[in-house]
């Protein structure tokens, strides 16, 4: 059940999106996220949808797999939509007791849902098509300029690599411990909240102990191999920008131009087309 979370997972495939330089991919994702919040009308979201669908198609990640990542966040998305729907002031179109729905509320809620959905799709697309190692490599290189002002870029990246590396391990371990304790009659399915909470202790204690032990062993293993931080460290696979990355950047620029254009489209322009 813990494995159903696809956000942050890597999906192995051979695609142009997978081959992009992680630095470029990170920057483009950031740009994309900024663009999401710049969009002011549904025409813009139409453009966004087409562009996103195109990228997903290029990445060869099955859309079904991407949408699965949305499921755990569905509750959160709905909650924001409902809050927006009922809490926005403006032109009232419907009223029932103290509940009132406004035109601005509907638009706001719709925009919010679209924004969060695209936000999640974009960030999952980044992690789905980039191995954790390349992701942190890219991040480290992007943060490098900030080293001068004392930002420990390499250490941060190493910490992230390790954290990402151990998430599946810890999930697996939790799974194993849960099984072992269920085999001895632990009751995780009980309706009683107190009993369920008590059943967590036999899981958390071994989990923490093994996490600490692992951390200790990893530190020793790294020291044994003479790890001493980022200074003077070279890479096995140096990152290189290719023509492909240039194409991606060009695509992004075109996309931004289209969105800016779409923002200028108003009802006054659209009306005459239909009448």
């Amino acid at each position, binding site marked *: 059940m813990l494995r159903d979370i696809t956000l942050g997972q890597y999906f*192995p495939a051979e695609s142009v999106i997978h081959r992009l330089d992680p630095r470029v991919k990170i920057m483009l994702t950031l740009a994309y996220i900024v663009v999401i919040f710049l969009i002011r009308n549904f025409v813009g979201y139409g453009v966004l949808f087409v562009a996103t669908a195109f990228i997903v198609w290029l990445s060869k990640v099955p859309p079904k*797999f991407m949408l699965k990542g949305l499921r755990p966040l569905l509750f959160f998305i709905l909650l924001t939509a409902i809050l927006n729907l009922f809490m926005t002031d403006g032109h009232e179109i419907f009223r029932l007791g103290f509940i009132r729905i406004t035109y601005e509320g509907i638009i706001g809620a719709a925009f919010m849902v679209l924004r969060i959905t695209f936000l999640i799709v974009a960030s999952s697309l980044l992690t789905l098509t980039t191995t954790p190692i390349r992701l942190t490599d890219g991040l480290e290189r992007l943060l490098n300029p900030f080293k001068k002002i004392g930002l420990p870029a390499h250490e941060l990246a190493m910490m992230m690599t390790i954290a990402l590396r151990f998430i599946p391990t810890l999930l697996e371990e939790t799974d194993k411990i849960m099984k072992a304790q*269920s*085999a*001895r*009659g632990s009751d995780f399915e009980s309706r009683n909240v107190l009993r369920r909470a008590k059943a967590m202790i036999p899981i958390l*204690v*071994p989990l923490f102990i*093994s996490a600490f032990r692992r951390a200790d062993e990893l530190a020793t293993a790294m020291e044994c191999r003479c790890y001493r931080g980022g200074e003077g460290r070279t890479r096995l696979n140096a990152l290189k920008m290719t023509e492909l990355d240039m194409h991606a950047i060009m695509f992004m620029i075109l996309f931004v131009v289209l969105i800016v254009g779409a923002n200028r489209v108003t009802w006054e322009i659209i009306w005459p087309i239909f009448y």
Partner: protein
Amino acid sequence: MLKLENVTYTYQPNGPFEKTAVRDVNLQVELGEFVGIIGHTGSGKSTLIQMLNALIKPTSGKVFVDNVATTEKGANLRDIRFKVGLVMQYPEYQLFEETIYKDIAFGPKNMGLGESEIDRRVRASAQLVGIGEELLEKSPFEISGGQKRRVAIAGVLAMEPKVLILDEPTAGLDPIGREEILCKIRDMHRETGIAVILISHSMEDVARYANRIIVMNKGQIAADDTPDAIFAQVEMLESIGLSVPQITKIAEGLNRRGFALPSGIHDLQTGKFEILKAIEGVKPC
């Protein structure tokens, strides 16, 4: 007691990492049997036995414990797990209590047994795995790895299950320790008539204790027979990456050099007897 009908198990179905670990297995185990399961690493042994006490449910097919299907709605899974005790592979990590005594008592306590019955069971199972009284009040985190293993096994034995499943219980134990534990388990099996299922990579252990052997290969049952019949099929075993006990190899070697020993010899006693018998027939020239 246990019955599997066309059981298949797939990890992460429909995902990019889909993996069918157990494929179309049919199996029946009755009380009083001592079943050994052997198979190459990754052949699906651990997956198979986790279905026997409903820790995982088959993707398709049915597992019956005492005629109750584990997939049935409203089946009491805890009840099933008390009946079918499972010692997982490398079970040391399941320890969590302050003292060894309390940790062994965790299972029986969950069963809702009385104080005195729990006490009896804890002491009996601790003794069975060779954990002395003086250790019972110690913390399970300040004992050696082998002792942890024993405590973990005792934690399942204390539930006195009708079917006891052990997933490589002796991996990483010293030779005397493993013999001690397995002998005790066999004694218990003989006295109480429970069913025991033992997974092991040691052909010697399986040959010695089991009276039925199941060979797993790539998620399927490749053979299911008595030790005599299984270890007579040296070629089949070797083709799927397994081997036979040392003594079987010796007998095979002798046969290739012109002796006529019966095939499938797998324990030292019989081996010695048969070899001596054969040699006496050979006239020194």
